[in-house]
């Protein structure tokens, strides 16, 4: 018995705006995939690497204070070489996570503005492919910096992985500059590059998923801005002063051979680093999730799911977007419990995002099948 094909919803009238292998489709698929992969990597990093890495940094500082107490400068240098390695390990993973998500956001943004880029369809498609390739290679290069190091590199400070990351970053910049040029051409000529498209704008639907994502996103971004302003105004400079003061006390205690005090100062240093990290992470994540929600509100017409499932993914995504930053902030007070809940929040965002991606894949699949059927039925 032949399968009964479910009709594509009303937004099928937008099919020309979502043509097979068009630049917009590449940007939307690639962008959501990059964001989901970046979030998943961040969750894995937070659970399996972040806290273990912080503990090893504390151990290294304690070892350094012992070396100072015994007057062993060679041991100090050895400890700091190890500490630098730990910091590079952590820093490159954070950067890979941030840059993968950032490239995904930019891809979604470029999907929105494609109708206003006055370039040929083929050029736009080529640029989209280059952008997605750059968006993948950029974080991969950053991730590999710690493992490749300076092996085989002709440069004094930059290894091959850095060269890969920087080249991919340059590729992203190149695509963005060409897009800006295409937009400038549109502003001057006022002519769309693909005038056959029925409407360059995305549909002005007013339904719960779209409204919730747009409003929720704007509120999340505003909350993030306010938190950032509060942190910069009240804590940033104090934290910077505290860091050097703690290190000075640590060195003084170690020099005096007072190892208990030195250990206490190492713990203070760890707590301070934790306080800074959770504030910065909460600030950046709440704004990123707000932007993500606003961006996803635009692609809702392409999510081919029932209204009930669309609402479920939206609630899951917005719920996770609030839970993660709030519980990241509470990590210093609630410890492991808050960390676990924050990780679950991150997972909720990922699941919501993948659910929407599945809906878009269904939409594009249905569209392609309908086009094929029409082509086969044509005389």
């Amino acid at each position: 018995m032949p399968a009964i094909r479910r009709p594509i919803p009303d937004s099928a009238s937008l099919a020309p705006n979502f043509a097979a292998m068009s630049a917009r489709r590449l940007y939307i698929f690639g962008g959501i995939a990059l964001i989901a992969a970046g979030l998943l990597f961040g969750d894995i990093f937070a659970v399996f690497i972040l806290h273990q890495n912080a503990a090893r940094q504390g151990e290294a500082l304690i070892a350094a204070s012992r070396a100072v107490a015994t007057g062993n400068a060679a041991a100090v240098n050895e400890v700091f070489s190890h500490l630098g390695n730990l910091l590079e390990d952590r820093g490159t993973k954070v950067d890979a996570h941030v840059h993968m998500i950032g490239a995904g956001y930019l891809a979604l943004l470029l999907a929105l503005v494609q109708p206003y880029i006055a370039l040929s369809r083929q050029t736009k498609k080529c640029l989209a492919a280059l952008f997605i390739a750059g968006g993948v290679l950029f974080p991969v290069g950053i991730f590999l910096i710690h493992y490749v190091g300076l092996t085989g590199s002709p440069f004094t400070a930059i290894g091959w992985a850095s060269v890969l990351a920087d080249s991919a970053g340059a590729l992203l910049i190149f695509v963005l500059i060409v897009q800006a040029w295409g937009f400038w051409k549109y502003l001057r000529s006022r002519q769309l590059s693909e005038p056959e498209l029925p409407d360059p704008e995305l549909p002005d639907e007013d339904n719960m998923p779209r409204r919730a994502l747009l409003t929720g996103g704007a509120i999340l971004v505003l909350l993030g801005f306010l938190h950032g302003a509060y942190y910069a105004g009240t804590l940033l400079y104090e934290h910077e002063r505290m860091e050097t003061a703690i290190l000075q006390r640590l060195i003084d205690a170690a020099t005096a051979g007072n190892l208990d005090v030195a250990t206490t100062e190492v713990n203070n240093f760890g707590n301070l680093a934790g306080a800074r990290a959770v504030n910065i992470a909460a600030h950046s994540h709440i704004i990123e999730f707000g932007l993500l929600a606003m961006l996803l509100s635009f692609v809702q017409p392409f999510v081919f799911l029932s209204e009930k499932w669309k609402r479920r993914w939206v609630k899951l995504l917005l719920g996770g977007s609030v839970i993660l930053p709030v519980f990241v902030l509470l990590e210093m007070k609630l410890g492991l419990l808050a960390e676990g809940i924050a990780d679950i929040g991150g997972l909720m965002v990922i699941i919501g995002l993948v659910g929407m991606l599945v809906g878009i894949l269904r939409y594009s699949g249905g569209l392609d099948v309908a086009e094929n059927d029409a082509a086969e039925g044509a005389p």
Partner: protein
Amino acid sequence: MTGSRKLLMFGGMALAAFGMLYGLQYALFVEHQTLDHMGGSLAQSFAAAAGRNLGQSQAALEQYGETKYDYVRQLDAHSHWIGLAMLMIVLGVIFERVNFSEGIRQLVAFSLLAGSALFPLAVILQTYHHGALILKALAVIGSGLVIAALAATAWGFARPRTTA
């Protein structure tokens, strides 16, 4: 397409490209050296303390603090330029739904663009004049412009559609 939308979309793209170019030049020519210098200063501070040379230890620690002060601000400026640019492009797509007159919308869009450019710039300039009050004030003004513009935008979204 209205002037406010053009301002947000083109300004956002230009600011994103600028922020990325800044990050690229920083990564290529400054970051690795800065990280080496930062780690080296801290190691030198502890090593000097191990050699009981407390003056040199303190000087190296101060050097570490200053280098880190610069590094944090360079990264912050890079990420804030790009982040704010992305927000501008998003808002540019839907700015017609901000229910104010086009004149007010242009004012809000200009505030967002000016704040988004000024705030990270003032943060970067602080690396050349540590603790300069005028630069702190500029950063506060820039971020204030961004927050006020976003609050006005949210208000505009919430207003009933009575104006164009």
